[in-house]
């Protein structure tokens, strides 16, 4: 789900996708063509994925094994990916959006049903995640989970001690006035509102205007305490000791734990899942309706579900894998890492984002703008 590249490439990618979205012929994103021309007799496969969201050796391995030439493009946000697929300027064969966006694409009839006869490795995916996927793909017809994770609070043990604040256990703790200037919040609408809505005990998929108004007011009240709204920088800022607490995606934890050790820092960074529940997210492979190489796309998905491949990707991306086969291949230490693979009990009260429709989306966007401009 999350994007390590951050806003740096935003300008270029936006510019290019603008062209592409408006019926231009330019391919969107940075086309990283690999493979050889001679392989083209087995056909091609246009893959559209998040930046830094695959172990690139895996692509080469797929090409060598199948002879299919992979054209691999990157996107930065779900919202940026959507118009590119919708306009069909490039016919991508397999895409990896997040939960709510898959629902939006499904509802707008943009997805093709996957023929699971061609994806035998689907058996490797833990049924738990197929169940989780039903939030956005009720019959498990359109999507195959690739990565999943949670959102939680990362805290600096030493800094909290200095401030005399106990370790956070709930979202409520992010409104503690003693943490003024020490909080890093996520800079995206739904994530920010999720924090406020969950704190108030509401669903993070609410469309109820009173609940949303209350969440907005909460976020405005919280703003003076917030040091910055950031996306991927939470990780580096927390490692650098910039802030005491930060809202972060669980997938960053492995890197953080490693870095804290490597740098020999005199503080610890701990991850906690707030007791009110949190955002459970899933990024899954889907096949757009206008795909030209559907069978190749299914081969790709099947390949991605292969335990060794899923393990290689997990080790590169460090976001939790829904692949049971891959999980079994990990060493016991990793399997027991609760920051990455939390117990089911800790996920009580958590939800998966659903698509709320364009009208509700724009209500969220407007409320977020009010928070930001306050």
């Amino acid at each position, binding site marked *: 789900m999350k994007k390590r590249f951050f*806003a740096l490439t935003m300008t270029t990618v936006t510019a290019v996708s603008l062209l592409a979205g*408006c019926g231009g012929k330019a391919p969107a994103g940075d086309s990283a063509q690999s493979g050889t021309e001679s392989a083209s007799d087995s056909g091609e496969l246009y893959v559209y994925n998040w930046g830094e969201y695959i172990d690139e050796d895996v692509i080469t391995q797929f090409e060598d094994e199948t002879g299919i030439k992979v054209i691999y493009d990157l996107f930065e946000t779900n919202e940026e990916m959507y118009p590119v697929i919708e306009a069909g300027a490039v016919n991508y064969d397999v895409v990896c959006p997040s939960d709510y966006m898959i629902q939006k694409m499904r509802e707008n009839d943009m997805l093709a049903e996957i023929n699971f006869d061609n994806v035998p490795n689907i058996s490797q995916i833990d049924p738990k995640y197929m169940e989780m996927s039903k939030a956005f793909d009720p019959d498990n017809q359109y999507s195959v989970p690739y990565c999943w994770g949670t959102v939680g609070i990362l805290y600096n043990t030493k800094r909290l001690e200095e401030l005399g604040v106990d370790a956070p256990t709930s979202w409520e703790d992010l409104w503690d006035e003693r943490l003024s200037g020490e909080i890093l919040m996520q800079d995206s609408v739904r994530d920010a509102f999720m924090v406020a809505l969950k704190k108030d005990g509401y669903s993070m998929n609410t469309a109820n205007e009173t609940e949303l108004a209350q969440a907005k007011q909460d976020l405005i009240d919280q703003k003076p305490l917030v*040091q910055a709204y950031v996306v991927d920088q939470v990780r580096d800022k927390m490692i650098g000791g910039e802030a005491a607490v930060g809202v972060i995606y669980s997938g960053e934890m492995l890197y953080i734990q490693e870095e804290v050790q490597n740098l020999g820092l005199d503080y610890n960074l701990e991850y906690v899942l707030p007791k009110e529940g949190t955002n459970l997210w899933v990024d899954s492979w889907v096949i757009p309706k206008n795909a030209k190489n559907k069978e190749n796309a299914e081969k790709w998905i099947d390949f991605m579900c292969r335990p060794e491949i899923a393990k290689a990707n997990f080790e590169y991306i460090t976001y939790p894998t829904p692949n049971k086969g891959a999980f079994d291949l990990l060493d016991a230490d990793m399997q027991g890492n609760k920051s990455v693979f939390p117990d089911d009990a800790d996920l009580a009260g958590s939800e998966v984002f659903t698509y709320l429709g364009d009208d509700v989306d724009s209500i969220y966007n407007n409320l977020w*703008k009010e928070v*930001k*401009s306050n």
Partner: protein
Amino acid sequence: MSKKMLSGPYLLWMIGFIIIPLALIVYYGLTDKNNVFTLANVLSIATAEHSKALWLSLGLSFASTLICLVLAYPLAMILRNRQMGQGSFIVFIFILPMWMNFLLRTLAWQTLLEKSGVINGILTALHLPTQSLINTPGAIVLGMVYNFLPFMVLPIYNTLCKIDDNTINAARDLGANFTQTLLWVWFPLSVPGVISGITMVFVPALTTFVISNLLGGSKILLIGNVIEQEFTKGSNWHLGSGLSLVLMVFILLSMALIAKYDKNGEGSAF
């Protein structure tokens, strides 16, 4: 005929990369999701959040432009009065950082200004009070001034270089002191450069969203951020285009300003 053929590629370039994109922005800006004509996107600049963002952008870019001018004018004068080689060497040094991507340089400022950043590290080592500029409007102005200062220095330097030494000497001969020469000779003759510099700083400062994101911690919403978010996160290209049209008014205004004061293109930077 053959001369006309030569202009062909440029014409294609302009149509493909200027006219068509602009037309698309106008089209998107004046239609709604169902492609029906509407002025709502443009008029939405009047909503509390948007107008607040616009005023804040105007304020911050005005401040940065003013600071740039105050810093750049004396510098340009000093450079002009250097001997030829020396002056252009300093100008070269000045342009050198521009060879590096401005995003990287802005990111570097983030590292410098952070609470546990380089500057505070030095201040702490010297037992001086630390600064807390990061994530404030002040940091954004600093970023704007840092990034856009060369765009102010160069046009002013260029126009000052074109002023004949004899004009200055004549003023001195006729008994004008330094202040009088500055006010009545130097400045009026350099107006084209000043106007050009002002536009070249003001317009990018007004439309920036990266500087405010990186140095403002996304806590400060400028009009550039609003537009960027409508495109990348809000999926509302119509609103984003409508607001871009509003911003274009300011850009057209400054182009008119240049046309009025810099008829001969004297103030062009390069």
